[in-house]
């Protein structure tokens, strides 16, 4: 994180210095302020939502000056929010549990400095660990305080799908929260009600079948060109079409995995559109379907925000050829044995101190860079071994590495990507052992 921030800061300075001679220091010209594509839907009244939505799950953090842990860098958040609003981004998506429970407050502080009607705010009921009515109500009310608002524009039942319909009933029906939330919608304290979804087609269809009863204003799903055919993104979208419910897209980049790609994939994408970023493909893909309201991106860095604004100002929908090209690219990416971790940190904190996402991300990085040798006979074995092991110690402190995973499996149930985390950690640990002992 520190590295990225430093690099980001350096890049910003660089831009300023150049600005004297070249317009904003970029061949691409200034970042447009008034060209952002926005979308309206009959069911959503006058709402005119920018197709780029700000995901508030990855706000920049910095070490706590008063001791342990990290805190949100509020100045940086304010800067990002101001810039986003100034360039037409008007949808902000947070949740009580994001960034160790600090996201709502930081988002609220930043947005409070702007007129309330200039943005839409989305937050969620994340009552995973304790779904009692009491706790759920407390969480709901706390969101208003943290965000410092009188009403919430888009309110989501956080992460349905895992645990099936039983889980939905337990968290929202049996405790009366669905009835309560519909009353709140009637009263105007919630303007739109929907849910975010990580799960199977069957559960999704069952939930949509309740549309008559609950009237879902919108639904948030995961959609990207890698998941489109292989998993169920296509099916989910088609179900939304059936009910004509607008969709919000999360994980368009798979937590950054679709911007950090192996070299041959980067080459392939760049050959098609040399001046567009690798990430822009995924964003254009996510917003090409017409029933999509907005695409969320958890932008930690100003450069990412600027790049995404460019991509969507205005949106150039994918042509049929481009779609086919992306699906083929998705198939190539899938051949790479990366672990589908999006660094959402829902699995954290591990009670035994393991830094799960850091381990998985290091592994993925090494896969993409070709530093996961198959055997000691590989021609690049020595270099790869060193890169993997040295990088491992750099990315993850020794006491937080995979060797300390006891396999209690408390993490897996939080993983929206359904990764069997202990199995992956043990597999990585065995790989590390064989590298260390040179027995690969």
């Amino acid at each position, binding site marked *: 994180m520190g*590295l990225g921030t*430093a690099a980001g800061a350096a890049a910003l300075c660089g831009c300023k210095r150049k600005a004297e001679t070249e317009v904003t220091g970029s061949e691409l010209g200034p970042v447009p302020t008034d060209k952002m594509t926005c979308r309206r839907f009959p069911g959503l009244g006058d709402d005119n939502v920018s197709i780029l939505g700000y995901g508030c*799950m990855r706000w920049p953090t910095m070490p706590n000056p008063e001791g*342990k*842990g990290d805190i949100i860098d509020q100045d940086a958040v304010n800067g990002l929010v101001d810039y986003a609003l100034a360039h037409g981004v008007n949808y902000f998506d947070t949740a*009580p*549990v*994001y*960034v*160790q*429970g600090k996201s709502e407050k930081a988002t609220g502080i930043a947005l409070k400095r702007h007129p309330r009607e200039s943005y839409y705010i989305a937050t969620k009921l*994340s009552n*995973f*660990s*304790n779904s009692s009515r009491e*706790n759920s109500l407390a*969480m709901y009310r706390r969101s208003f305080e943290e965000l410092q608002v009188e009403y919430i524009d888009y309110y989501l039942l956080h992460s349905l799908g895992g645990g099936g319909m039983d889980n939905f009933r337990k968290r929202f029906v049996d405790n009366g929260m669905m009835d309560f939330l519909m009353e709140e919608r009637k009263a105007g304290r919630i303007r739109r009600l929907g849910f975010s979804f990580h799960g199977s087609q069957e559960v999704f269809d069952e939930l949509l079948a309740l549309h008559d009863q609950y009237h879902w204003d919108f639904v948030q799903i995961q959609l990207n060109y890698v998941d489109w055919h292989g998993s169920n993104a296509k099916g989910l979208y088609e179900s939304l079409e059936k009910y004509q419910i607008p969709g919000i897209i999360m994980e368009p980049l798979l937590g950054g995995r679709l911007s950090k790609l192996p070299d041959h994939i980067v080459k392939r994408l760049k050959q098609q559109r040399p001046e567009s970023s690798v990430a822009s493909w995924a964003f254009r893909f996510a917003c090409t379907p017409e029933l999509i309201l907005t695409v969320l991106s958890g932008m930690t860095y100003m450069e990412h925000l600027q790049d995404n604004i460019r991509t969507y100002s205005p949106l150039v929908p994918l042509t049929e050829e481009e779609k086919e090209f992306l699906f083929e690219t998705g198939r190539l990416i899938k051949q790479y044995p990366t672990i589908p971790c999006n660094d*959402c*940190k*829902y699995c*954290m*904190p*591990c*009670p*035994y*101190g393991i*830094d799960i996402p850091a381990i998985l991300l290091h592994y993925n990085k090494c896969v993409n860079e070709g530093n996961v040798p198959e055997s000691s006979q590989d021609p690049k074995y020595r*270099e790869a071994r*060193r*890169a993997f092991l*040295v*990088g491992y*110690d*750099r990315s993850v402190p*020794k*006491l*937080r590495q995979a*060797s*300390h*995973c*006891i*396999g*209690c*499996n*408390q993490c897996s149930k*939080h993983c929206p990507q359904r990764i069997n985390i202990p199995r992956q950690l*043990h597999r990585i640990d065995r790989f590390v052992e064989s590298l*260390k*002992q*040179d027995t690969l």
Partner: protein
Amino acid sequence: MLRKIRVALAIFFYVAITMLFLDFTGTLHAWFGWMAKIQFLPALLALNVGVVVMLVLLTALFGRVYCSVICPLGVMQDIFAWLGKKAKKNRYAYSAEKRWLRYIMLLLFIVSLLAGGGILAKLLAPYSAYGRIAHSLLAPLWQWGNNGLAYLAERADSYAFYGTEVWIRSATTFGVAVATLLIIGILAWRGGRTYCNTICPVGTVLGFIARFSWLKPVIDTNKCNGCGLCARNCKAACINSKEHRIDYSRCVACMDCLDKCKRGAISYRRAVVKNHQQPVGDGTATQDSLHVGDTSRRTFLATTAVATATAAIKAQEMKVDGGLATIVDKVVPDRQTHLVPPGAWSARHFAQHCTACQLCVSVCPNGVLVPSTDLTRLMQPEMRYERGYCRPECTKCSDVCPTGAIRPITREDKSSIQIGHAVWVKKNCIPLTDGQPCGNCARHCPTGAIQMIPSVEGDKRSPKIPAINTERCIGCGACEHLCPARPFSAIYVEGHERHREI
């Protein structure tokens, strides 16, 4: 010319030996590892007859060049003396030999050594004294420098440097190193080779031989005008310019006087042996006092159990995303018998041979070797598994040990040497205390000595606990280090007095 050769060789040896203590990657040992092994006392303890004979011959031929070139503590004193000389020129003066002090120190040293590597022997042995200084005081600087480079390398996406942990393994050893440096440094600054010629046991032994060396600096009385310039620049204080005599037992053959003399009256050559009457060495008469050091070993002075951080993770109202659980530091278990590395044969063999030079501690990549704080084996390394465990692929300590306290072993040897055995501590075991399945000890045991069995006989669904086959256990500590129970592991390694092959 001779002096320049001596200085060049001394710098070469000094830098290389120091690097042995600084290079935690272990790459330099392949090139310069032999330099530690030709140190006099280590070679003697390792019963490295060839080296001892060679050093004795070297001294018999050329005088105490060992002290001027090979001994790092000697060269370090020369550096201090050189700085002292810059502050004040011609600062030395001849002093008479304090022979009684030298022989008493030697006698004490030998007694201490025979008594099983007592503290005095370790304190006085010159190479080990230097090793502690290099390891405790220079290595951290080197490592910080390395970590700086690693920091830059990381930012440049290079794997050329990797970070290493800088930590003081034992406050006692650190204190001893500082005290040694201060005392010897001040002595050297003021009076040159005072330590070598009054205290150092190796200096006394070699001095005895050097009296009769074949080549030595000799004053030509025909040329000498008695100006005394040589004496005032002799850091060994061994030139009696008035009587034109040199005390060869103290002369370290530094050749400074040869260059200093303006009349060329001193030359390095064969000399007719004057009939000095030497008292016959009385250092060999103490063979019978071979009693083994006190065995009440494990009184750990500093087991201040940090009990404050027991409830590390507070039950939270709401599970939020991200963050890292606090990891409580592990506490050293109270072992019946301490652990010494594979290749040491036995605690006793190790205690008798180790001079506490810290070379093995310097190269241990797993943070396992730590100088002991136990008075009976103060500063000698022992094994602890709080920071890592004795990894199956590593034999570095046995590769570098110059004294034979840790005999060379191969990876294959290591996998079959039992240095201790694991002991299960029921009250700390996570499946029983937290109700979480674990088995991390069994998963990482390199010899497969641990199986997980149901804690309730016959009930296959009861929490699984480790069953240790002590016959297969080699005591590497993987289970202890990787045990999730903190601060006290639920499985720890108990040392063996004598190592066995399994």
